[in-house]
């Protein structure tokens, strides 16, 4: 083991610049993969938050609603019953959930509570400022016009929102960012794999004398390969640690330092827990990225 570690030390000091360039490439690739995964996690979280099967939100009138169908102020029980009946009998509606003003207030608290201004806004609003709503699931998510035209004109209905329409751009942006991050990461991963292969080829060449002697005196394959494997593993772990640090800084400065404060009203943002899971995944990926080409190349160049 001592010999092996000294071999590793010699090899690392000989390949300093190669190892550093490998670590840099791997760190950037892993960081991009991590951001891609984080965006994915954000998209899941947003979709989960709003309900992935909800297509329409029918808000009834509150006493302050400006709509022409809210002239009588807060929706009456009769108006509520009429809207419910209309939804019940509409063939395009699959089901609908009722959310009370208190439910909506709770949800708003979770969303607005992320920011300082949101918290202040909430202080001036009570549960009564929030409408009763029906969250409607359609049989065919694309066919919402019929329901919208039917209920939006009914007395007691403040407005009808299509959540798909509202959240569409957000999901689209998240999706595009994710593709961009993963696409760039894939290119960099190819570069990292080639760099691992080149490093091994160069190291095998630089150490050809030692390797030749090791083969001749009967060193086993794994004994010859191990310094290479350890070197790759070390580079992978350093890259994983640096990319985890990068992701941590992104979480601290961008997500917690900016997004939650300034864009907290859009959605709930990813938390530390999700970023830790992403760090775990990128660490495994780093080891695979380094070790798979190492095993292939060492078999090719160092086989007894």
């Amino acid at each position, binding site marked *: 083991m001592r*010999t092996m570690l000294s071999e590793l030390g010699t090899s690392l000091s000989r390949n300093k610049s190669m190892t550093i360039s490998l670590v840099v490439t791997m760190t950037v690739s892993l960081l991009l993969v991590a951001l891609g995964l984080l965006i994915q996690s954000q998209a899941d979280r947003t979709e989960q938050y709003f309900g992935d099967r909800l297509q329409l939100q029918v808000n009834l009138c509150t006493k302050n609603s400006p709509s022409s169908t809210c002239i009588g102020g807060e929706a009456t029980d009769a108006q509520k019953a009429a809207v419910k009946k209309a939804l019940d009998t509409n063939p395009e509606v699959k089901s609908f959930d009722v959310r009370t003003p208190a439910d909506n207030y709770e949800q708003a608290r979770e969303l607005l509570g992320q920011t300082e201004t949101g918290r202040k806004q909430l202080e001036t609003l009570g549960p009564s400022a929030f409408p009763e709503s029906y969250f409607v699931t359609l049989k065919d998510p694309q066919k919402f016009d019929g329901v919208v035209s039917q209920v939006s004109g009914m007395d007691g209905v403040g407005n009808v929102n299509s959540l798909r329409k509202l959240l569409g751009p957000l999901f689209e942006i998240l999706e595009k960012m994710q593709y961009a991050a993963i696409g760039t990461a894939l290119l960099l991963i190819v570069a990292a794999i080639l760099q691992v292969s080149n490093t091994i080829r160069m190291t095998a060449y630089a150490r050809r*004398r*030692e390797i*030749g*002697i*090791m*083969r*001749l*005196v*009967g*060193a*086993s*394959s794994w*004994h*010859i390969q191990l310094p290479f494997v350890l070197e790759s593993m070390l580079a992978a772990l350093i890259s994983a640690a640096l990319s985890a640090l990068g992701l941590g800084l992104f979480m601290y400065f961008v997500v917690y330092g900016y997004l939650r404060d300034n864009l907290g009203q859009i959605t709930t943002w990813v938390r530390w827990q999700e970023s830790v899971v992403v760090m775990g995944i990128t660490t495994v990926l780093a080891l695979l990225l380094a070790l798979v080409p190492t095993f292939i190349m060492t078999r090719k160049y160092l*086989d*007894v």
Partner: protein
Amino acid sequence: MIRFDKVTKTYPGQKRPALQGLDLEIEKGEFVFLVGASGSGKSTFLRLVLRETRPSTGRVYVAGKEINKLSSWKVPKLRRQVGTVFQDFRLLPNKTVTENVAFALQVIGKSRHEIDKLVPETLEMVDLQGKGHRMPDELSGGEQQRVAIARAFVNRPMILIADEPTGNLDPATSVGIMKLLDRINRTDTTVVMATHDSTIVDQMRKRVIELDDGHIVRDEARGIYGYQS
């Protein structure tokens, strides 16, 4: 110890075989000179013994193992039975004499205790006691070859292969190296030496196998380098 059974070796892309229908047996403790012109098949013979290549047809047995049937993970074990010495010494320039010899034991996983015992013993055997701390470039050619022999022999192999070990040395130094190989041979180690050095072969009067164009053209028990008239 070494047996070739109708061995033919043709390298990929070559029409002419490097060895053709070779039949021979080398017993335990024998000292054999392998002679012949360049390209006669000597190196291929040695590479087959080391299992660096496999025969195209026929069988090669080394230390009781048929090398063609030997799976690659068992090859290192076979090579621990075969020490090798080259014309160009092949020492590691950044290691001392002791470290060069110890390296052969370290990489096969020998304990520190064994290494500490075997390395000084072997250095003494090759008359390099007191020079263990020197770097290879501080030694003469003959001394460097002694280090290479110590490295090949430190694990006490059953066979020692020497490929032109005196090729880079002056005649007086060569005699010293041959005495050393003879001493190793007396420990019941089989020595196979490929050489072009007619003086040494003629002086030693050991078994001589002459190869020509991949065939054995002469196999004499107490032979000389050229044909006896």
